[in-house]
């Protein structure tokens, strides 16, 4: 019943042997050295400044939505960097491997990456960027901002929030582990059957990919439950549905998509796992399997997934543009309607990912029309942003530049998307680099929104603005790289280049490939400006301090509280009277009115349980990947035991007294998210805030 996989297997180590470590591969060795150095650059200062206890107490065991959000974003940025390096390696291989006369290095017939390595790199590029870079960053942003935008103290389920974070991190760690122990999938981020079945992918690569995504998807689903429950149940008094900030609306619709679509992915991967572990025949070509079932199940998740990613990006643009146009968002109600229209229609379009599978003209036409219909609410959004700009007073800060850049990318991506929606056109460009350029336009628009959001909300979280000059240089170089690379890629699509090629047979593509390489070089230069922006901003933070409203023209509730946001978010829950509450308060000169009195409030305690579940989940995943059954079994039982144990532990949290709150609010400087406990200790307020009560237990 259990599938026999080629290669050695022992009860203690499963498929793991010394040969699993690719110590003869110079590229991996270099990556390992780089990772070790980067790791040491973090670990050594932590040890030197004796911050291990601090990190454990305040960050690794936190249940505070802001800290969890920051960790999500950090995880996403690191994975985005690795995904970017993968992208660089892909581009360089392709420019070096054009034509039969192209030379081969490091054991490759052409270029420097043999196919089995190249195929892993593009698979991890896609998987990392989509699942482990963009998703965590957007999740992190939602985690930080949504409770603030609705006037809540935290998410509905703080501990579950932390569990979601650690499960996502575990997935990312599995992908990182695949770099140094074993290998990664060579079947792309989609993993179409039967290529991912054991005969065609006998190594642990597909198993790493499968469990990394499966485990982090549980985190995403739990996060979706949390966000929806928070938005529905924890809004401040007066925060009616027609007053909800637009970013919160898009987060709500995104998480409804996530909650309902991720289980389908779970089924697709579980059935593939059953094929790979139990010898079932869900997706095999023979013995009654149906490989098209995998394609359908995957893309039924896959298409809502891309809207899961893009709707928060639209929400970010909808917050940034009104702030820097000093005008309310045009067409708020139709914006919300369009968001949910997109979310709903996105369920009906999945077949456009495989028009060429031969479903016939009637079925293809249905999905073609549905795909084009989704363009209508998207167009409505573009019009609404356009009319928000109209007769506004536009300031071009770095976040505004990113938001406007995203707008232009949406136009190109939308145009090329409508081309791909026509089956007759699709039959000429399916799976070509034209498709890659199209969806990179969309993914880059998400990246642009992420950079806009980072610049926009960074001052809220940390209390000082990012450096504008280097931020704008980052924008210019990044945009130049985008233009150079993707114009060339669209051209290559029309020349007939298909995707996922380790070796390119047509030397006529060389000029375009060189152009793409220049483009990625410009992107690399933009990384320098990103790093410079962070360095200069932190160095000059005293000069760039901001108050509650960092931009002066903000409109929504999160800008009502201090920057940086204290651990309790709002001293007193605000009463919401209108949409764009802060703008109304400005207009009526009550923005500076402070609460007249303070009251005790209750906060949850930090707990090590989510971290523990994460560590055990890694053991579970790693054990399954290498077929170390005792490790997987023990980890699973331990997770169940920990959850049961936690359910018995009555954690009362702690109370912050009104007097403490008054002192904190009256202090000269607001609490910084990095130093707040130290600050509280200096002010002698730790014991007052860590006052446990049993009254909250039941």
């Amino acid at each position, binding site marked *: 019943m259990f599938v026999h996989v080629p290669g050695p297997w022992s009860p203690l180590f499963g498929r793991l042997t010394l040969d699993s470590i690719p110590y003869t591969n110079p590229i991996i060795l270099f990556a390992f050295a780089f990772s070790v150095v980067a790791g040491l650059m973090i670990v050594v200062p932590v040890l030197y400044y004796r911050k291990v206890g601090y990190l454990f107490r305040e960050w690794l065991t936190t249940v505070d939505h802001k800290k969890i959000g920051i960790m999500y974003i950090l995880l996403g940025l690191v994975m985005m960097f690795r995904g970017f390096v993968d992208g660089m390696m892909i581009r360089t291989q392709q420019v070096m491997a054009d034509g039969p006369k192209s030379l081969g290095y490091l054991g490759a017939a052409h270029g420097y990456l043999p196919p089995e390595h190249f195929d892993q790199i593009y698979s991890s590029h896609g998987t990392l960027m989509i699942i482990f870079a963009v998703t965590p960053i957007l999740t992190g942003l939602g985690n930080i901002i949504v409770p603030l935008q609705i006037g809540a103290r935290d998410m509905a389920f703080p501990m579950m929030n932390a569990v979601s974070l650690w499960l996502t991190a575990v997935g990312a760690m599995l992908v990182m582990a695949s770099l140094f122990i074993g290998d990664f999938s060579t079947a792309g981020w989609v993993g179409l059957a039967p290529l991912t079945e054991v005969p065609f992918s006998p190594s642990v690569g597909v198993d790493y990919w499968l469990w990394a995504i499966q485990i982090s998807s549980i985190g995403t689903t739990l996060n979706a439950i949390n966000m929806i429950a928070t938005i529905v149940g924890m809004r401040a008094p007066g925060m009616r549905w027609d007053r909800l900030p637009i970013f919160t609306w898009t987060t709500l619709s995104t998480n409804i998509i996530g909650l309902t679509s991720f289980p389908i992915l779970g089924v697709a991967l579980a059935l593939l796992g059953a094929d790979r572990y139990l010898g079932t025949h869900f997706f095999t070509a*023979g013995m009654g399997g149906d490989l098209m079932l995998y394609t359908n199940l995957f893309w039924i998740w896959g298409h809502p997934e891309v809207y899961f990613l893009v709707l928060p990006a639209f929400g970010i643009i909808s917050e940034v543009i009104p702030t820097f146009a000093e005008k309310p968002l045009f067409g708020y109600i139709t914006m919300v309607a369009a968001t949910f229209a997109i979310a709903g229609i996105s369920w009906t379009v999945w077949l456009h990912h495989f028009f060429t599978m031969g479903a016939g003209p009637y079925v293809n036409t249905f999905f073609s029309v549905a795909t084009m219909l989704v363009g209508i609410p998207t167009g409505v959004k573009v019009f609404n942003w356009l009319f928000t700009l109209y007769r506004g007073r536009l300031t071009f800060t770095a976040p505004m530049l990113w938001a406007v850049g995203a707008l232009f990318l949406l136009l190109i991506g939308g145009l090329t998307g409508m081309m791909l929606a026509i089956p007759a056109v699709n039959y000429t460009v399916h799976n070509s680099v034209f498709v890659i350029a199209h969806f990179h336009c969309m993914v880059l628009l998400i990246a642009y929104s992420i950079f806009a959001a980072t610049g926009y909300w960074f001052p809220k979280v940390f209390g000082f603005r990012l450096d504008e000059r280097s931020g704008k240089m980052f924008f210019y170089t990044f945009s130049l790289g985008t233009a150079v690379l993707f*114009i060339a890629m669209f051209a290559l699509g029309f020349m007939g280049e298909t995707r996922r090629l380790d070796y390119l047979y047509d030397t006529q593509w060389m000029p375009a490939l060189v152009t793409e390489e220049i483009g990625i070089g410009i992107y690399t230069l933009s990384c320098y400006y990103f790093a410079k922006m962070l360095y200069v901003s932190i160095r000059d933070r005293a000069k760039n301090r901001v108050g509650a409203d960092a931009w002066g023209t903000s409109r929504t509730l999160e800008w009502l509280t201090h920057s940086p946001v204290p651990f309790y978010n709002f001293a007193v829950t605000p009463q919401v009277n209108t949409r764009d509450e802060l703008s109304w308060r400005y207009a009526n000169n009550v923005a500076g009115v402070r609460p007249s009195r303070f009251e005790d409030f209750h906060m949850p305690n930090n707990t090590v349980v989510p971290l523990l579940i994460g560590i055990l989940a890694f053991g579970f995943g790693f054990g399954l990947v290498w077929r170390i059954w005792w490790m997987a079994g023990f980890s699973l039982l331990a997770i169940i035991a920990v959850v049961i144990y936690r359910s018995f532990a009555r954690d009362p949290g702690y109370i912050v007294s009104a007097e403490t709150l008054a002192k904190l609010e009256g202090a000269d400087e607001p609490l910084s998210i990095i130093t707040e406990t130290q600050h509280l200790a200096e002010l002698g307020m730790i014991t007052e805030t860590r006052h446990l009560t049993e009254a909250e237990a039941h």
Partner: protein
Amino acid sequence: MISSRRRSVALFSRPFLFLSALFLSGCSTVQYRLFHPADSIANVEWHYTIVDVAVMLLIILPITFMIALFLWRYRKSRNAAYDPNWSHSLSLELLMWGVPLIIVVVLGYYSYQSAMLVNPYKPSVLAKSAAADAPLQVDVVTTDWQWLFIYPQQGIATIDDLVVPQGRVVDLRLTSASVVNDFFIPQVAPMIDVMPGMRTKDAFAVNRVGNYEGYSADFSGEGFSWMQFSTRIVAPSDFASWVSQTQASPHKLDYAQFRQLARPTVNVGAKPAYFSGVDPDLFEEVYHAALQGVVYPVPAELPIPVPAKAAATQAGPARS
């Protein structure tokens, strides 16, 4: 702020225009394969590409222009009209939902029309051209990582070389002995997936003599990059002589020999091979074998042979 805005526009537009000009100026060159259809099907695909882009540009161009205009005109420093209370307009809403809806209806109709015209199973554009001769039947089998073209009516087969006569409809049946591939000849034939345990169909008819390159558009494993095949459209007399030449080939192909051929092989340089005395039921046998669970597992180590100097100068169709 003004200078940074102007700077960003300049920084953007110059390389953008230069690159677009550079790449689109090559529109007329043959390397832009998709812009040079060689038969009626590719013609339809190209025609509808243009139509779709033209219709979409009706919306996209005005929007782009308006965005650029508003960005420039309503900069804070210009002190233009400022209307902070204007955020709703019913007429604009009706337009922005209505006009795209009409466009989608129009494009939806074009989508349906073109889907029927180039439907790989029964392209109605071919039905229009009254073909004098009966279609040429070709059975296609993909392995890891080669293309096998079987001519059941002629009893011959080739590897990585599809030779067809001009002016005649070619009817293809496709199946795979390994994993999913995607049959595609730019300028000639529409894409169709090639799947194990399933039979798909494709069809095309080219009226002019010429050489084209076909390949798989669906990643199928390590040897995928080398999965090209040449497509040669030849005069009917040349086709007849090629067929009889191939029928004299010393290599035979039955199912047992196919099993040898189907073992994972990377055909660097897509060297063609020719077979005679081919089992006419070979296609069906491969299909049924796949249904029974016959697979050709990919070994852990698969060294790609570096092409020798001779291979680089090998005679063959236009492959740089």
